[in-house]
């Protein structure tokens, strides 16, 4: 059997990014994917005839522009198109509209609270300061704070200098606060209006098994503001053709460097001999050989799933078992026969092109979390709904629409037992009812709906408990602690074994940074020229 230079397990966007950079450096790279399609959670699938479902990740804002450009993804077919607008509907029949025009937004906020409209300026500046600090480290490998290696000390100096450079503008104490406090406390420091707080607060709980008043959720909000679409910081866009276009473009770029992808190739085990990786064995018995094996799988699945415990230090097994990768989200994807109307909104409003929410206070959000703690899906869920077909004409036939609903919260198990199909359908119905509360014609327009609970997400794409970030984005497992202390630099516990998924720094979202960072570390170990770009300097 042919021996490759490197094998990457999992054709998610980070696996493909990692593979592309290794191949670009001249390595002979094989990517193995368990499904018959590539992409992992960046995927577009035709689940209803003529409708493309971007059925896992659904919007694109964090993808690092440096990587997009460096791997020439536009030439390989990737188009990211920003969308404007956004609405939070209120139970009293009113709404808050999130206009992209700054002054229009101010006027809309002032309709709910004059003071909040003004406080938003302070909020915006503070969030920008914090994200600028984080952004600088996205395409860098975190230093190991317990190491005396020169490279770690140097990187600690970079970190220290960045913090020092902030001077009194943002002192590091504030930064620590933002990284550890709850999104509810964070927003309470700026705003008085329930609806404004609710509109902004949702991003603090997306993908996270925590409530708006749980410590650590303020960082999750910052995490969602780290991206930019063409220099508009915090902006989000659709990928033309659905999120699968990200994976397809990465795959095309990878192949242009001579890379090879095999689908329907589920890895059973990473093979280790004498403390070194030798390759991987598939479930069907096929073996592939390489000195470098990179896992794009989540940390639990990597160490507890496809590695033999005998090959691992106790420490790693223990940490992997304790790694927090709790399922808390669901997804409902809907094919629509036409555009649903939302009577609360003015006719023809540009707000329709953005994200819709139906939770108008942090209290309701917290209650939604209470259901999760009790082992139930939220009866009054927080839903992040978008209609990509108002921006992207490729997702449905002309005049028809596709709706994506991301739902918080949805537990990995119902009251401690496995999900049943009936549970799943009840969950789907709850979400549909939530939207229908604000759109009387919505239900009649539904042609097909795909309901995904953590059960489906784990079974189909291998995210443990359906956790969309491959592990929660709480401070205890971020930066050099991601996935666990001592393993924050993409190297596994066995020589030749690496991690490149969202379980590593800087975490989840379709960012491609973990994959790129891992490639850089591998190339350093191989003493090859680095092919991974540095991040754009913030200005």
């Amino acid at each position, binding site marked *: 059997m042919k021996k490759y230079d490197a094998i990457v397990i999992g054709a998610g966007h980070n696996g493909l990014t990692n593979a592309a950079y290794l191949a670009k450096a001249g390595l002979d790279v094989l990517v193995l994917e368990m499904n018959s399609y590539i992409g992992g959670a960046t995927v577009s699938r035709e689940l209803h005839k003529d409708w493309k479902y971007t059925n896992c990740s659904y919007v694109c804002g964090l993808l690092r*522009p440096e990587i*997009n*450009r460096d791997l020439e*993804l*536009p*030439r390989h077919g990737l*188009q990211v*198109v*920003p*969308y*404007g607008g956004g609405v939070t509907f209120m139970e009293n029949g009113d709404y808050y509209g999130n206009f*992209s*025009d700054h002054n229009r937004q101010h006027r809309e906020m002032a309709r709910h609270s004059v003071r909040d409209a003004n406080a938003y300026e302070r909020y915006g500046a503070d969030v920008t300061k914090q994200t600028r600090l984080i952004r600088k480290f996205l395409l860098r490998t975190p230093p190991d704070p317990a190491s005396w290696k020169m490279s770690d000390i140097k990187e600690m100096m970079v970190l220290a200098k960045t913090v020092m450079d902030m001077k009194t503008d943002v002192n590091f104490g504030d930064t620590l606060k933002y990284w550890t406090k709850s999104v509810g406390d964070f927003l309470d420091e700026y705003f008085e209006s329930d609806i404004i707080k609710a509109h902004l607060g949702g991003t603090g709980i997306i993908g996270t098994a925590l409530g708006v008043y749980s410590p650590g959720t303020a960082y999750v909000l910052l995490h969602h503001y780290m991206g930019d*679409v*063409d*220099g*508009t910081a915090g902006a989000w866009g659709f990928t*033309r053709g659905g999120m699968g276009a990200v994976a397809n473009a990465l795959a095309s770029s990878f192949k242009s460097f001579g890379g090879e992808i095999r689908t329907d190739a589920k890895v059973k085990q990473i093979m280790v001999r004498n403390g070194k990786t030798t390759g991987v064995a598939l479930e069907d018995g096929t073996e592939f050989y390489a000195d470098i094996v990179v896992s794009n799988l989540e940390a639990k699945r990597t160490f507890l799933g496809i590695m033999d415990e005998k090959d691992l230090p106790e420490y790693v097994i223990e940490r992997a078992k304790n790694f927090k990768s709790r399922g808390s989200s669901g997804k409902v994807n809907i094919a629509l026969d036409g555009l649903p109307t939302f009577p609360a909104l003015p006719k023809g409003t*540009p707000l329709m092109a953005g994200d819709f929410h139906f939770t108008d206070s942090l209290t309701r959000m917290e209650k939604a979390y209470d259901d999760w703690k009790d082992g139930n899906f939220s009866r009054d869920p927080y839903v992040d709904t978008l209609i990509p077909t*108002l*921006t*992207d*004409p*490729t997702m449905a036939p*002309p*005049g028809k629409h596709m709706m994506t609903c991301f739902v918080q919260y949805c537990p990995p198990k119902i009251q401690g037992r496995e999900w049943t199909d009936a549970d799943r359908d009840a969950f789907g119905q709850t979400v549909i009812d939530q939207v229908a509360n604000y759109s009387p014609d919505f239900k009649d327009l539904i042609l097909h709906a795909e309901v995904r609970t953590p059960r489906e997400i784990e079974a189909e794409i291998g995210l443990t408990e359906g956790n969309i970030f491959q592990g929660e984005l709480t401070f205890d497992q971020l930066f050099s602690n991601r996935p666990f202390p001592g393993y924050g630099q993409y190297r596994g516990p066995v020589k030749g074994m690496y991690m490149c998924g969202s379980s590593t720094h800087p975490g989840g979202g379709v960012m491609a940074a973990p994959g790129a960072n891992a490639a850089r570390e591998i190339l350093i170990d191989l003493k090859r020229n680095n092919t991974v770009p540095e991040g*754009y*300097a913030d*200005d």
Partner: protein
Amino acid sequence: MSEVSVQQANDRETMLIHTPFHSRSSALNKLNSWENWKGFMVAHEYDDYELEYFAIRSQTGVMDLTPMTKYRITGPDAEAYLNRLVTRDVTKIKVGRVGYTVWCNSDGQVMDDGTIFHLAEDEYRLCSYTHCIDWLMWSAEGFDVEIVDETKQVAALAVQGPTSCSCLMAMGLEGIENLKPFGLTTFPFEGGELMVSRTGFTGDLGYELWVEPALAEALWDQLFAAGKQYLIRPFGLYALDMARKEAGFIQAAVDFVPAEDQVRVGRTRSPFEIGLGWLVDFNKPFFNGRKALLKEKENGSRYRFVMLDIEGNKPANNSFILNKKGKVIGTVTSAGWCPSAKANVAFGQVDAKYGEIGEELITEIYYERELHWTKVLAKSVVVKGPMYDPPRRRATPPAPF
């Protein structure tokens, strides 16, 4: 030569002329943001320039093109005349075809660039940036042609973007999908005639629609009704400028000085010097500027047009271009971030000794953030370009989206 008629009563009253689409475009211009395009009032931005730009790249964008200067050139010598006027071989532009060209003065310096529409036997339309009828008339000495400025007699829309063909098909323009790039065709429309050319200034799939002003509003209404399901929206000149830079199109009076406007010696450029040497055909009969251009071809040019792929994301507007030793060798004429190509592009003029494809130069970029200025010496590689060139631009028939 005078204009054939003054159609709009308001022409004498107002500072800027309203185009025949004004009732429609003004209703959609939420920002009330207009530009002065050769005396016409045309949208700069309707509601969000960024989304307008992305309509061109992902949906369909519509722009009022009426102010484009248009001349009707007819008569038995029309072809010979145009062949004398412009640098490319006009005999190769068959009836039903459009050709991009430049024309020069006798020193071989570019007067303007534009398009020639071969409408029928002995009948052409020349679209230009400049008002150039004076030059057209001087060049017409000895030719049996009639030249009429028909700028106000023709209302025009640019319909650009991946769903543009679907929009036109939905409007009932049968067979439009078979129109090849740079082709033109006509359809009966509301008792008159609608001309459609597969042309544009965006580098994407796109068409331009031409009708008499009386049919303009009907055209707009039918187009927008048919295009609704293909996510049609209007775009202004701001979005156009983003698209054209990404598509590698130079702009008169921005990337070169039209020769007639030159006051200071040496500020004009030849076609070779603005990257349009491919439009000069010495194998055809005599044309304006031929002698000078032939001499330039033998002796070499003074300047070279470069398209630069600049590292980082700071636009290189008004920048100096340096060689690797730090010597100033030229300047940037247009620059900007390319939102679809994810590239930082600049067009520049450099000393002809420099600027081979692949050469690494330096662009001196200044940018301001919160009243703080920063200088960047950005690595800039000369590329062939364009930065964005989707295959759908050339596909016939185009895909539905």
